[in-house]
């Protein structure tokens, strides 16, 4: 992705942010300017939530481990460089367990801001647990570092207090998938998605792109995000004789989907799901390699290895270092996303003239198009949504002992030719 594409929105956002900053300065009086002359704080407090249990635990905990890894490595080198004070300051992580509950999370975000007075506010995993933080952060004029909430409806140019660090806006994910399906002349496509911002925006994009290519899905159904029984639905879909079945869900949905699919005795020529590409080990354990064979998913780091990076560790180096610092920690896309959040914070602190939240936001905006991490090129739009960090298509191939996930599309990233229909 070229760096130039982001420059025009950048100018626009710079203007908007400038106005905001000016307003902030007027209301806050000398606060912002005083920051420069103030004594440097003893530590930078980063506040975040994690889901120690509940439906998002499998995704949230690796992400939290990734962020923790970043804190540990930074502190091992004497802290993070803060431009506002011209020196390195140690980082402290202040975190609570929200147990995947939005109401608990609401109270806890409030706690982080109003009682703990954190310097940096980082959201928990995913759209659902991030969304409740948005109004709280905006109300208290705290910049919300959104790690993996990618539902497009969460972003608004009117709200400068939010920025997506580590996951591409989900509405952009299915673009290569739609291209792949059209290139293979798949005509009968069935789409099932869990009813949440993340999955819905993917389903909408896919259906829109397919329609543009003249393909209208034979089924387009949503199920509650809590769904763990797809058996009857699978039979309803099978009645439509689809060539491709696309299921967009969270990890629990995908696990149930594959378990039901392998138990049902039904076979589809092409099956696509999200999470086998993001949390491969978990899906292999809970659904089994046989169920995953020849199905498709997204190709994301660490499967796609970005090693030429401008900041932090590349994928290969991260895979080597992470287990040393966090022994036993799960290592998957979410871990990388958490680490990536740390990198964005690190660069923002290194370039922002002050710790003022809008100044930080401005600094992050300035990084867009000029930074490549282990997730690929970092690029955000005026609303703070991530448009870089691309996703590709991968497929599971049987091997002597299990299955192997390999990128298959687009051709310039493929390591294997796609097999369609599944044998």
């Amino acid at each position, binding site marked *: 992705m070229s760096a130039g594409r982001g420059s025009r929105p950048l100018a626009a956002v710079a203007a908007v942010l400038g106005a905001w900053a000016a307003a902030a300065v007027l209301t806050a009086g000398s606060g912002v300017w005083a920051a420069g002359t103030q004594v440097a704080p003893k530590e930078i407090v980063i506040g975040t939530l994690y889901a120690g249990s509940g439906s998002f635990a499998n995704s949230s905990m690796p992400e939290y481990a990734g962020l923790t890894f970043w804190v540990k490595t930074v502190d091992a080198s004497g802290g993070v460089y803060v431009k506002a004070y011209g020196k390195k300051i140690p980082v402290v992580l202040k975190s609570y*367990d929200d147990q995947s*509950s*939005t109401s608990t999370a*609401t*109270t806890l975000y*409030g706690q982080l801001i109003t*009682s703990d007075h954190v310097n940096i506010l980082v959201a928990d995993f995913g759209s659902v647990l991030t969304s409740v933080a948005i*109004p709280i952060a905006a109300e208290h004029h705290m910049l919300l570092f959104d790690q993996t909430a990618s539902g497009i409806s969460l972003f608004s140019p009117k*709200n400068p207090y939010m920025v997506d660090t580590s996951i591409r806006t989900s509405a952009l994910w299915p673009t290569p998938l739609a291209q792949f399906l059209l290139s293979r002349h798949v005509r009968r496509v069935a789409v099932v998605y869990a009813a*949440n911002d993340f999955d819905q925006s993917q389903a909408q994009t896919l259906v829109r792109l397919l329609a543009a290519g003249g393909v209208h899905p034979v089924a387009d159904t949503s199920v509650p995000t809590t769904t763990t029984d797809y058996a009857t639905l699978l039979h309803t879909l099978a009645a439509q004789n689809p060539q491709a079945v696309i299921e967009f869900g969270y990890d629990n949905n995908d696990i149930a989907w594959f378990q039901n699919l392998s138990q049902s005795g039904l076979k589809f020529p092409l099956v696509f799901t999200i999470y086998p590409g993001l949390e491969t080990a978990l899906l292999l354990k809970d659904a089994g390699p046989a169920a995953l064979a020849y199905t498709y998913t997204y190709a994301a780091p660490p499967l796609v290895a970005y090693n030429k990076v401008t900041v932090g560790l590349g994928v290969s180096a991260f895979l080597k270092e992470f287990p040393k610092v966090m022994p036993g920690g799960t290592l998957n896309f979410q871990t990388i996303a958490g680490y990536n959040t740390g990198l964005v914070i690190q660069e923002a602190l290194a370039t922002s003239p002050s710790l003022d939240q809008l100044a930080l936001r401005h600094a992050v905006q300035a990084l867009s198009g000029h930074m490549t991490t282990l997730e690929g090129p970092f690029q955000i739009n005026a609303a703070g949504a991530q448009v870089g960090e691309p996703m590709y298509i991968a497929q599971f191939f049987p091997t002597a002992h299990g299955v192997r996930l390999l990128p298959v599309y687009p051709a310039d990233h493929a390591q294997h030719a796609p097999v369609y229909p599944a044998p």
Partner: protein
Amino acid sequence: MSDIPPATPEAAPSPAAARRAGGAPAAVRHGLTILLPAVAVFAVAPRIYPNGALLFAMMTFLVLAQGINVIFGFTGYLPFGYVGFFGTGAYAASLALLRLHLAWPLAMLAGAVAAALLALLLMPLLRLSGAYFAIASLAAAEAMYQLVSNPALVPITNGPYGLSLQAVYDGPVSYGAMVGVLALTLAILIYLRTSRFGLALQAIRDDPASAATAGVDVVRSRALAWLLSALMAGLAGGVYAWHVSVFYPDTVFDLSFTVFAIVFVLFGGPATILGPLFGTLALYGLYDAIGISTPQYFQFIYGLLIVVLVLFLPEGLVSLLRRRGIRVP
């Protein structure tokens, strides 16, 4: 019929006694000693204590606990699905703000009216006895939740994707609105505690047949209490939604709203003004102190508390005072 033992004489003062003590003055006295201080404390608290979210949640629970008190304490019906009114109010008020662009006082009123309409629709449930009523009201709340969160209704309610009121969000004003709702709630409770109507409700609770023969319109009085209680939840729901401003169906239809409120009422003592007030302040305060990051420890204590209360103290803490002859308003 009711799980609450017939009120002891001092718990249900005769109208004559109330008049002797000064019927209207009693209401005024309660207004001065309970309503005014409570409202003043919550109005001033945000300046002293920074976590406004917590204060706001506490007020929400105060209103809900008193709402449950109206229907459970005064008439003996246990509305397990009480949160249905709360959620309905939240959605109705939010949609009035978002889709109809109503001014906020009107939108909050719309929330209350919607909840009252739902209560009207569910009026036949009052024919059911005890456990049946409780379960039926729970089913009604769940059905309402499923309706609101249904993907088929996305054009209206935005289905499972929740609503965002960020465009009309106003922290201080919505906080103030909840203070107002709390004041209204306490006023209603003071009225019930000092009026003939409140007395009639308790008579119905203890013995519907005798109440009827004494000239109380049983059906109409129950219906009024039911509507009143729904109205309070609807109002609270609307203001709550406005204040949190991003919420999902399961945020505002969360059964734990009912659960907490019931425990607060049981703990303090139903059919009084101070019981639920004290129950909420004490238990929610405790929850704040130990429960926030691991709510299960608290849930555990709640559960045990319910068991112990039902088996040993079904009239709540105030009954301990009452046994010593101290009258609790």
